[in-house]
């Protein structure tokens, strides 16, 4: 493993870690509740959704709170990463113009920093899993890292795209706001995948999160693994990842002219 001792490799690793740490610590610096905001946010949201759909609309479903949270925590990692990374490049002008370093590290750091919220949420999910079911199984150790890797891949791809496009076309920021809201309702977060009529399921593949969120829920709520869901979401994530890299490299060349 010679290259792991390579100085440049160590430096890159240090840089990525420091940028990530900076994102994490700065996000809630000077706030009273700090990192707990990242938990409070989805929990309060889940409560509101519970009141609206379970109490008012009287959806017939057991464990609806757990059902919501099992999808909301992963969704939050995705949506927060995208919303924040939209402004990452245009918010670091002096770094991009005056220092030489891999610019995509800024985006990776943003996505990694949001992952911490999901990690913090794990105890809550584990608690729910014990309360409503048989508790987390041994297969979590395999599937949770795989799903994190898949979601990381797709999120990075989209974040690379939107961050660099936003530098050229500032309307992106507002478009992203709308798309994230639409995506929230078009993804099986507050409803299960199987309520969607068969005829429309084919379009769901356009949404990179459909099968991923379903896979998260399978493992969290019933310790079950649906490999076809996982493989489909992996395929989709690769497509987004590669297009993200392509667009970022293409547009990144004349970034200095637009920011």
């Amino acid at each position, binding site marked *: 493993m010679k290259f792991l001792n390579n100085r440049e490799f160590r430096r890159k690793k240090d840089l990525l870690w420091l940028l990530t740490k900076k994102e994490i610590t700065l996000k809630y610096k000077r706030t009273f509740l700090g990192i707990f905001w990242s938990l409070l946010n989805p929990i309060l949201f889940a409560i509101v959704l519970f009141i609206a759909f379970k109490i008012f609309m009287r959806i017939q479903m057991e464990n609806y709170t757990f059902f919501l949270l099992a999808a909301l925590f992963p969704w939050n990692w995705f949506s927060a990463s995208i919303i924040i990374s939209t402004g990452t490049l245009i918010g670091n002008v002096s770094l991009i113009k005056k*220092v030489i370093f891999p610019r995509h590290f800024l985006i990776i750091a943003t996505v990694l920093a949001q992952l911490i919220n999901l990690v913090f949420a794990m105890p809550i999910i584990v608690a729910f899993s014990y309360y409503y079911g048989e508790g987390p199984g041994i297969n979590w150790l395999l599937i949770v890292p795989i799903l994190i890797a898949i979601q990381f891949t797709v999120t990075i791809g989209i974040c690379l795209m939107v961050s660099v496009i936003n530098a050229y076309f500032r309307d992106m920021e507002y478009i992203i706001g709308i798309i994230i809201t639409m995506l929230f309702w078009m993804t099986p977060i507050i409803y299960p995948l199987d309520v969607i009529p068969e005829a429309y399921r084919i379009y769901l593949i356009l949404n990179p999160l459909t099968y991923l969120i379903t896979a998260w829920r399978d493992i969290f709520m019933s310790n079950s693994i649906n490999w076809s869901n996982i493989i489909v979401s992996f395929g989709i994530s690769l497509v987004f990842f590669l297009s993200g890299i392509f667009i970022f490299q293409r547009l990144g060349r004349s970034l*200095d002219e637009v920011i």
Partner: protein
Amino acid sequence: MSYIIEVEDLWKRFPMRRDRPGFKEFFVNLPKFINRDSNSYFWALKGISIKVEKGECVGIIGKNGAGKSTLLSLILGNVYPTRGRVSVSEKITPLLELGAGFHPDMTGRENILINGVLLGLTKNEVMERMEDIIAFSDISDFINLPVRTYSTGMYLRLAFSVAIHMDPKLLLIDEILSVGDEAFQKKSRDALLNLINGGVTTIFASHQMSAIKEICHRAIWLDGGEIRAEGEPERVVEEYLRYPG
């Protein structure tokens, strides 16, 4: 003789209209846009060729907008050439903007660490130099406070101190010799001279003619994106100062 920097027939243009027109302007001025001359560019550099040897200190002078900063950015690699070629065979330490990447809410120490790694060191290497950097900057009392509480002078001193402790091999400097008060200015100038005399290759863009004459081995006068004169600093500075334009 091998060259550290080779710049060959370098051209760089920027689009003149830096802000894309919005939707409203687009409709108001529709006829104008249809007939718009789509080739309106500003050429910041027009066919520059420079070779820099190891250990050389090259001063770049010229009016505002002559292309000095663009040339430095191209050598750094943040900006891509429109035409031509830049090759650099050494790690670059840029001092183009002091405190680029400093975050106001992080402490002096935290900023030193992240800035040092951004400028090319590993975390351990920065930690080894930490006390030297703090000592040189003279702000030991404030080092654990957020940078937003610093005065401008303190901020710049800290940033300068980080930059010169990076073991630079090739320094790019854009007008930063006047940092802090008299005492610190002397200190920073001495530190830079030390580096240059120690064999660090330096490209130094400045309006301070005395500094150019004192520090540099060679001067290049840029005017309108072209090299107007090149050679002995004394002579080039003379010529530049005599030039009426």
